[in-house]
């Protein structure tokens, strides 16, 4: 990917950008409705369960980081091929691509739904989806570097908006609604924590392109920081949701964080600013989906042995758009979301554990004499 004009190719990502990308992958599409998934299970302690999930996710991220440090210049598929041999490795790569596809479809569906239900009510959701996917296609053409740079800018904006939101919401929020602290009990909280870990586990998507990080020794730390940041943001969002709406209220509304944004205002003149927040969150969701898209097609390109992933962009985008339109109603979407949240955690734990275990057992590291290493491409 280095045919850029100018003096030398610079396909590099920095440490901060990995942190930001990981954080966005974790929270960007999930935090709107996370409370709705977790509160029925954990009660008022949903935010604690998010933190527990974050702890799980930290473990996953650290393992993934070790894996990346062991094979600094390999993409995920390449790693799998080295550890398990070509056919099995390609299969693992395909499962990874499938996982990314599910994340993509579900994430884009959720974001489109939020935009459609809340604001553009008579516009056909296909159109909103189309705009999403056109932007994702453009971002994928431009490559991970452009996405990383833009992510840094928009992440700061999103974090700033969330800070503003919490500041504005503090006078209206009732901290008492977070009591009792243990919510529905320790058991349900742990269960909800495990569900929340699925959000954090999405961070393994980063494995597909972490070889572009300049200094691989920081990979573990970067991913862990990103996961921690993302889950902290989700915890705050969930906590505020409970404080503003109460447990029953959360089960009642479709997008708790959106309702929270609707409730706050700045004095008399800026009262219904939730569309501003939503526009910013939409951009974060877009960048997350672009990253996942990129990870997916580079993996597929590696599996198929292509040198350049660009021919795959449009077909895969059509696939993603079609998948995202499968759940036709809100209820179906939440059904799929619940199923995803319950089962995907296993995959996100299994992937880095299996690869790392295989690499450690076979004693493999980067730098071995492997003719299949095609290097950067």
């Amino acid at each position, binding site marked *: 990917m280095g045919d*850029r*004009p*100018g*003096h*030398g190719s*610079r396909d590099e990502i*920095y*440490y*901060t*950008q990995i942190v930001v990308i990981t954080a966005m992958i974790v929270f960007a599409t999930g935090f709107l409705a996370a409370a709705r998934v977790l509160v029925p299970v954990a009660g008022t302690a949903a935010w604690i369960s998010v933190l527990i999930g974050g702890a799980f996710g930290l473990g996953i991220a650290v393992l993934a980081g070790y894996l990346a440090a062991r094979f600094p210049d390999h993409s995920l598929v390449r790693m799998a091929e080295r550890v398990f041999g070509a056919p099995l490795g390609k299969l693992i790569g395909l499962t990874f691509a499938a996982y990314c596809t599910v994340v993509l479809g579900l994430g884009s569906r959720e974001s489109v739904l939020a*935009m459609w239900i809340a*604001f*553009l009510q008579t*516009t056909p959701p296909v*159109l*909103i989806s189309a*705009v999403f996917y056109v*932007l994702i296609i*453009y*971002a994928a053409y*431009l*490559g991970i*570097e*452009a*996405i*990383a*740079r*833009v992510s*840094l*800018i*928009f992440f700061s904006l999103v974090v700033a908006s969330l800070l503003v939101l919490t500041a504005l919401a503090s006078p209206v929020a009732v901290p008492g609604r977070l009591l009792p602290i243990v919510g529905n009990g320790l058991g349900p909280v742990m269960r909800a924590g495990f569900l929340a870990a699925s959000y954090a586990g999405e961070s393994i998507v980063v494995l597909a392109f972490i070889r572009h990080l300049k200094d691989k020794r920081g990979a573990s730390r970067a991913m862990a920081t990103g996961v921690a940041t993302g889950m902290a943001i989700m915890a705050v969002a969930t906590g505020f949701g409970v404080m503003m709406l109460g447990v029953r209220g959360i089960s009642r509304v479709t997008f708790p964080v959106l309702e929270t944004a609707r409730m706050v205002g700045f004095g*008399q*003149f*800026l*009262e*219904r*600013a939730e*569309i*501003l927040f*939503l*526009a*910013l969150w*939409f*951009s974060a969701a*877009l960048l997350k989906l672009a990253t996942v898209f990129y990870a997916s097609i580079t993996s597929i390109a590696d599996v198929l042995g292509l040198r350049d992933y660009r021919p795959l962009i449009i077909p895969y985008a059509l696939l993603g758009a079609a998948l995202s339109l499968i759940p036709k109603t809100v209820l179906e979407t939440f059904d799929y979301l619940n199923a995803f949240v319950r089962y995907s955690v296993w995959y996100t734990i299994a992937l880095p554990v299996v690869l790392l275990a295989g690499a450690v057992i076979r004693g493999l590291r980067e730098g071995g004499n492997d003719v299949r290493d095609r290097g950067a491409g």
Partner: protein
Amino acid sequence: MVRPTWDKGVFTVRLLRRLARVGMRRPRMMLGRPLLPLEEVADGIGTAAPGAEDSEASRKAGAAPPDSPIPDTLDGVERRLRDLLGKSSPDVIMRRVVIWTNPEIDAMLFYIEGLASRDVVNLVALRSVMLAERVPAMDAGALGRDNIASVFMTHIVPSGQIAVLPCIDKVVDHVLTGEAALFIEGARECVVFEAKGWEHRGIEEPHTEKVVRGPREGFSELLRANTALVRRRLRTPDLRMDSTKVGRRSKTDVVIAYVEGLTNPRLVATVKERIDHIDTDILPDSGLIEEFTEDYPYSPFPQMQYTERPDRFCAGLSEGLVGIIVDGSPMALMAPGNLASFFQSPEDYYERFPYGGPLRALRFIAGVIALTFPALYVAISLFHQEMLPTKLALAIAGSHVPVPFPVLVEALLMEVALELIRESSVRLPDPVGQTMGFVGALLLGDAAVSAGLVSPIMVIVVAVTGLASFTIPHYPTGLAIRLLRFLLLFLSAALGLFGLMAGLMAIALHLGALTSFGIPYLEPLMKPRPSLRDAVWRSAVFTFNKRPEYAEPLDQVRQKKFIRTWAPGVAEMARKESREGGDGGGEDGGEKGSRGR
């Protein structure tokens, strides 16, 4: 290239004609003289490679075109010159003189009136060969054909820049750049000396980058004057000015300036390589070089900085940029450019820190406003009326009642009207132009509101947008923002804030992928590093101890970390720092402490 034409008959005839011409001794082209062979044109680094098929073919054939030596007799020379330059150009002067040697020699002075300075020609050439006392002592007979010109060069003709040339075509080239030639009867070479002295605009205040405080010298069209301005400000011997000629017919001098040991040599090599590849007829302005050499010519965003101010040019050179000065253009280019640099104005540095910083931040905000304000207004008033405070919503609705157009059409009307006013006021003569701009805008706005064509709020929105876009110091960036504003307007009218955000995302992604000479466009805004001190906000001048890194200069250290050591707190910090020996952060904090006193 043989262009395919519709009529096959004409096509065949033309092809045959061309084939027939190949064998001719002197190939003729549509528009003029044959081109010089490649080796003769090579001068300095890089060659303007003419791509005509004739010289290409002959080059491929391996045969060098014949040398054009200087004819033996002055008449022969005159005939040859008239051949080359046309039979009767009134500004081509060929003046026969007799040199007062013993025995006397005939000579001919050849120059272009208007290019060569009359004084120089008279004093240097004519006076020296006709009246100088040394001349009669020369024994002309002892001088042969080969060395008489060199002797004249070293002994007789008093000029600072002087050379002998054996090839008459090259002599013509030099004379066309403003030098004068002295042909000596019977000599194999010709003396060519510097005599440039044409009319030019003097050093004036730059028209486009006016400042309240700061030097008021601007580049002019004369290359030598410009390079002199640069040399005066950077008196280091490391300042290199490599010259090349661009343009087949214009042979414009282009100077590439950089500081050796500071500027990254790869950057210099890239710039030179790209300029070498330029193949064009004439180069009237540096703007064409920009388009020829930038990474993404189709992007609306400019990728090179330009400036009319030598102080800004030198500041850029000292940061590791490569500067390009073009003869005939007062705009000097600097490569690479990035987004933050287009919002910087030299005034930021000349004014003190408390004003410089906020002013720069204000410009960024103004840039954002200029890009999004009309689109934001349209989006909110069409889709998101719940965002407005009730009183404002009712006021907007009330002001919109008499207007027959939808908001989008209204916005487009006003924007187009503003653009028309802007464009027309650029072209009108000065006194009329300013009045017209002002009056036009007032009348248009007021009359339109009274007629009920637009609402007063729309006028305010458009006016604020216009003002914001004028605060951007770099004109092409302002143009890019103007262009993109229309795109965002359409998107927001279609999909509200969602469309606006989608448009902004697309622009951001485009900027994220943009590079300027291989260096990412958004570079200084990326990770926290010293160069961020100068990007969106300008920190105090004494904190700029590292150079900005985006141009990857070889030498990172610009100035000492603690400069104001005469201030009590700072001296202590410097001592502590040198004791610890490490790179402790927070010189800002130290300086702040001392500033607070």
